[in-house]
């Protein structure tokens, strides 16, 4: 980690979230929209994991712990929970998109749109 600036992961997370917002707003294909949301989830998860890094601390995953302080595993626990939840959200989205495709024969959000006003 010495060669990487400490705030590099935060920049990467911000970049991921920014790109995903662009995708969600401007892409017409429903599958691409879902990929955008998956990217946004990855960005937020990366942010949470990056928060959990403490210079000099031990990761709380060993049974045979080396000397020194151990980090509190809260951010890691949050990230795991959030990953599990996002899997459920993405699975539900893909299920609904399959049904939309069966009804309209299109994945274009402009063409499959019935309700207006």
């Amino acid at each position, binding site marked *: 980690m010495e060669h990487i600036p400490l705030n590099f992961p935060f920049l990467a997370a911000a970049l991921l979230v920014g790109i995903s917002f662009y995708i969600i707003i401007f892409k017409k294909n429903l599958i691409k929209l879902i990929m955008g949301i998956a990217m*946004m989830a990855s960005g937020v998860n990366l942010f949470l994991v990056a928060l959990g890094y403490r210079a000099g601390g031990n990761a709380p995953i060993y049974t045979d712990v080396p000397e020194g302080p151990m980090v509190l595993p809260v951010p890691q626990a949050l990230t795991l*929970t959030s990953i599990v939840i996002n899997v459920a959200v993405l699975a539900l989205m893909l299920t*609904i998109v399959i049904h939309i495709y069966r009804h309209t024969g299109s994945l274009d959000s402009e063409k499959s749109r019935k*309700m207006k006003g």
Partner: protein
Amino acid sequence: MAALIAQSPILIIAIPLAAAFLTLPIGMASKKARNALVIVSLTFVVFLVFALARDISINGIHVYTLGATSPDLTIPKGFMVPVRIILEVDGMSMLMAIIWSIVSLAAAIYSLSHIANETGQNRFYTLLLLMVTGGFGMMFTGDLFNLFVFLEIASISGAALIAFRTRFADTQEGGFKYIVVSAIASLMVLFAIGLLYSQYNLLNIGALAQVIQYTTLDKIALALLLIAFTMKAGMVPLHLWFPDAYSVAPASITGMLVITSHACMYAAFRVCFTLYGGMLDAPVVGWILIVFGILSMFVGVTMAIFQKDVMRFMSYHAISQLGYMWIGVGVGLAVLGNADLVATYGRDAISGGVFHILNHAMYKPLLFFTGGALFHCTGTRDLTKMGGLAHKLKWTTVLYIIGTLSISGIPPLNGFSSKILIYESVYQFHPILTITGIIVSILTLASFTKAFHSAFMGAELPEYKKVKEVPRSMIIAMVILAAGIVFITLFPSLIVNWTIHPAADALIDQGPYINAVTGAIP
């Protein structure tokens, strides 16, 4: 009994969760046993909620620490801060829980015959009970991350229920919009939680509120939280998904979705009043809520006038009614720093906004249920194709009239008592707010009268000769909500003293909420 009440916050969340996963095996054996399980578990939850409400009105805030040897042991030995998951129930969360328990019971009863002809009914009840769990969790949790988890539980099950009738194309579109909006909103909430955790290493709302500094990062977190919760509650610039999703769900679910919107609104209030509290730049945030609240009221009602789809028409009215609550509580927030103004009209404004949540939670699901009854009988949601239904649907007509009079704020119904509280207090803050409120109320009455005329009045149409009154369980569900309306109409001062003022005081003063966790002397 005392032990039951001490454990009741977790039981209220756990009972629907356990019942949700029991419906599938029991439903495969017998349909009647499954229905009995759903109704009995939700009735027991209503009983627990009222027992807990009584206890809180006597003993104050109720704290429940998960995994501790005793429920009120919030900070474990050897720690300076709360690390366990804490449920915290005060006046405001109690009011929301009362609403949610009654409406979910009514929705479950309504579903018994409303979805009787659909496939996959066992899964429907599983999702319905999961949604109940998520809603109660959002209302009771004292922990920011749990708020996110329960928000996601409610959103996922809600989206699956909207898209439940897969044979229609529009339900799929509505469900997809709902899940996309929910996913974006909850990721924003999670990002904001990360921002707060990075500075204070805390997730508990009470403990965070004690140390929060209102730095630039805190302001960004506040903005993210407010955008996320107002988007999920359907405030106006972010409301476009709202009618699409709400109008296509089964009517019983639409009634419950309205309350999940209120739960997101509750979360926004909790963040503004309890989490940021005294540190908040109250006038700025208050004015933001007021301005967008007025926009919601106006845009909602003007869009509703042109709608032909009965559920869509009611959804736009829901947006407009949510605006009343935003301005009521927004005015209270704007004067929060000034104790004199809070005493003169701030407390009344917040009480009015909170009271309107209670009233709206009674008449809006009732109206959605009558809309569902119309769909059940005629097979269409198009108002122009209906007519003369009052001849056949006597119960539905009477219940629709009760709902209409209540939503338009006709005295002496309950909609009037909360609106007059908002009008009087908000007038002292800025007269234009009251004037807009009255105009919106008139437009609401006008459009509901028009809808009443096209659906119920006139001669009997030949294609609806064979229409019968809706099944008994749907009528029972509607009567439960109408009875709630009548009760609030008859005893407004009792309701205000017993539930509304404790809720408003819980918002105004963050002290008891913090002390219940950190154990400081009040």
